[in-house]
């Protein structure tokens, strides 16, 4: 006689330790195996798009920090470029290089959190604290630069708020000299660990068609084998002048599109970001850091869509202006939101432990999903 089993509805989150912020999943499980997983998002909805219609253009800049608080510089960058393109505001070359440098540094620390919490979700505590230790250094650099450690509010239309302090570039170089060997150490500690590989290789495989179909972006898309990076394919700021490679998922690291590939894409992106920062330091032009205008900013009527490559993929700002000092409508398109949509498809038939790995590998972050 076969044993009768009963489905169990399991509520995972919003205060579950590995849901990266406040996410909720409603799981229908048979013991450990998940039949169906329904993500329930919206716990961190702050109405940012509506707020944008209420405040002036410069006043919205600090709100962009909160779209993805682990990569505030990148969110600032996208918004600044959107407004500048619509308003025809010039950015001095020094500011462009500073912007790219801080954006790439922020990508490094955002990926550090990503791979660190990834390891934590797989059960290894030490890599997480090591990642935080490295991140702390960049936080100190950013604090020196703009006074804030998490939500920087460093970008302005036409440049950046503060020029680099004396000797700042040397300190960034020193950080990179420290960081690159540390990354190799990190790989020895966790990335090449046998148990870690066993847990991730072949888990949560996203094929290239699925990745395109679900509009995955950024590292998640590239891990599925699609070579697409806005920094190279649709260059903004000064990325066109810089040399870097775009890491793409490969069978060398398990199955293309699995959790382990997504992990490795982020690790290799950190190496490339370090390379970009080094180039920015080498080429850093002299001159003004901010083409500052005393007038109150009013954009001409029109529409503008700008997308940039944030750590969690394409970050798009769709701005409609009616000639006022504030947006008529601002739509923010984020990578985590589309990544969440594929969870339901991938989660059926896997185990609870794999779901944790899957969420961690997609690197979703609650404020970016909900906005």
């Amino acid at each position, binding site marked *: 006689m076969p044993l009768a089993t009963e489905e169990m509805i399991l509520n995972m989150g919003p205060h579950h*330790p590995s849901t990266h912020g406040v996410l909720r999943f409603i799981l229908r499980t048979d013991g*450990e195996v998940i039949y169906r997983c329904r993500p329930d998002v919206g716990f961190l909805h702050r109405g940012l798009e509506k707020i944008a219609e209420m405040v002036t253009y410069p006043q919205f800049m600090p709100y962009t920090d909160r779209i993805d608080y682990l990569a505030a510089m990148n969110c600032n960058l996208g918004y600044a470029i959107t407004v500048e393109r619509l308003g025809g505001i010039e950015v001095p070359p020094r500011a462009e290089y500073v912007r790219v440098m801080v954006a790439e540094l922020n990508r490094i620390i955002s990926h550090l959190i990503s791979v660190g919490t990834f390891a934590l979700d797989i*059960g290894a505590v*030490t890599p997480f604290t090591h990642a935080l230790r490295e991140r702390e250094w960049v936080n100190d650099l950013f604090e020196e630069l703009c006074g804030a450690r998490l939500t920087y509010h460093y970008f302005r239309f036409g440049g950046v708020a503060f020029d680099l302090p004396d000797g700042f570039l040397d300190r960034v170089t020193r950080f990179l000299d420290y960081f690159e060997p540390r990354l190799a150490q990190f790989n020895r500690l966790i990335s090449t660990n046998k*148990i*870690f590989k*066993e847990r991730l290789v072949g888990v949560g495989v996203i094929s290239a068609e699925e990745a395109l179909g679900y509009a995955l972006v950024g590292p998640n898309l590239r891990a599925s084998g699609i070579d697409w990076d806005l920094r190279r394919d649709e260059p903004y700021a000064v990325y066109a002048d810089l040399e870097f490679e775009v890491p793409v998922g490969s069978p060398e690291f398990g199955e293309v599109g699995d959790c382990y590939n997504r992990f490795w894409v982020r690790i290799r992106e950190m190496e490339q970001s370090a390379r970009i920062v080094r180039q920015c330091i080498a080429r850093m032009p002299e001159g003004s850091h901010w083409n500052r205008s005393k007038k109150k900013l009013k954009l001409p009527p029109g529409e503008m869509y700008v997308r940039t490559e944030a750590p969690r993929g394409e970050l798009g700002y769709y701005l409609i202006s009616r000639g006022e000092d504030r947006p008529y409508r601002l739509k923010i398109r984020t990578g985590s939101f589309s990544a969440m949509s594929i969870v339901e498809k991938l989660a059926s038939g896997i185990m*609870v*432990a794999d779901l944790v790995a899957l969420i961690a590998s997609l690197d979703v972050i609650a404020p970016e999903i909900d906005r």
Partner: protein
Amino acid sequence: MENLVDELLREFWLFQRIGSIGTAALVMLVCGVAVLNFFGLIGGLLTFFERKLAGWTNSRRGPNRVGPYGLVQFVADGLKLVLKEDIIPAAADRSYFKFAPYLVLLGTTLSFVVIPFGPTLIISDLNVGVFYLLATGSFTVVGLIMAGWASNNKWSLLGGMRSAAQIISYEIPNALAILLVVLMSGTMSMQGIIRAQAGGMHHWFLFSSPFSFLAFCIYFISAVAEINRIPFDIPEAESELVAGYNIEYSGMRFGAFFAAEFGNIYVVSAVAVTCFFGGWQLPMLGETEDLGRVGAAVGRFLAGPAVLMLVMIAAAPCAFLAWKASRAFIWDMRRKRPLFPSRFVRLNSELLFLAFVFASMALFLALHLPLRSRLPVIYTLIFVYLLPFLAFFAKAMLISFVILWWRWTLPRLRVDQLMGVCWRYLIPIGFVCLVGQGVWLCLFG
């Protein structure tokens, strides 16, 4: 313990007055108190050790405030847990919920009964010692599954189920490895197993044949799995099951689970030491008891200075504390500050800790000392108690260190992989080892 009761009855009129049952009860009580104290002390020290180790690997500090080097932190934590509110969920099965942690704790404390800390330092050298250990180890799983079910929480339930599946599976390779040791020593008594490894390091079962070395690996892996430590800590996997079976527990009931976990680390290390590392025998020397007799003959002349040295060793921490207290007092007086109470609380906690250590040691030794009247007390003390105890303790700590070290280095396996390791690899290899060792003993034994 049985010998102890007999000897007490024979040698002291006081015990003769209270009769054999009364003496046995008294001895049981004292042994129980000593074991519980030792259990608490070891568990606490291991938590301290683990947190320090975590600090070293994770580039942070670890406890460093309460007592010297934060050594007494566990006392403070224990006090905190005792004082915390004991919450029982409304929908929980109250009686099972209350009982479960003590069942887990019981399994661990019962194991301490047969752990041989020295040639005579064992509460009861049962002739089925290892078998008894395997049996008490199974108490834990009943407690865990009871906790998981009674909490009436789905995550707890999953944790309880996982632990049941895991612990029961891993008992098989564990028992196979221990069976191999029984095959080699021809006895199940813990002291018998240790005595079978007498005569120096190369006689230890770890090194005596390739099969026994493999058996140690199997034993160690399955022991780590049995006590739910990373990489096999799936019953309480915090990133998956929040906290597993103990998610609804708070206060001292949680403390009981916690103490049992750390007590278990020591128990499995102690069993590994007993079965594979020669127990309390010193690495480079032969039988320590013989050594004690030789030493007694040679060193009657040195008894006086040796006693003096022991007294000095015991007095040194007290003198140090007194000096520190006086320094603190002078420091406060010079600055005309009111005597800050917390400073004295801190000093007192150190004194309390030391008193606790010495008292539990003295209690345990006092039971045995007068009975070995043929040897001078001091040599009995050093060669029969102190050195073997330290050897055993050091070896057990070394193995515990590896278990703690894994915790902070490795990620966690998935449930099915965990079962795969057990059924696909450990159990077949265990059987092969058992047969291989039999053949080995026939050929070379």
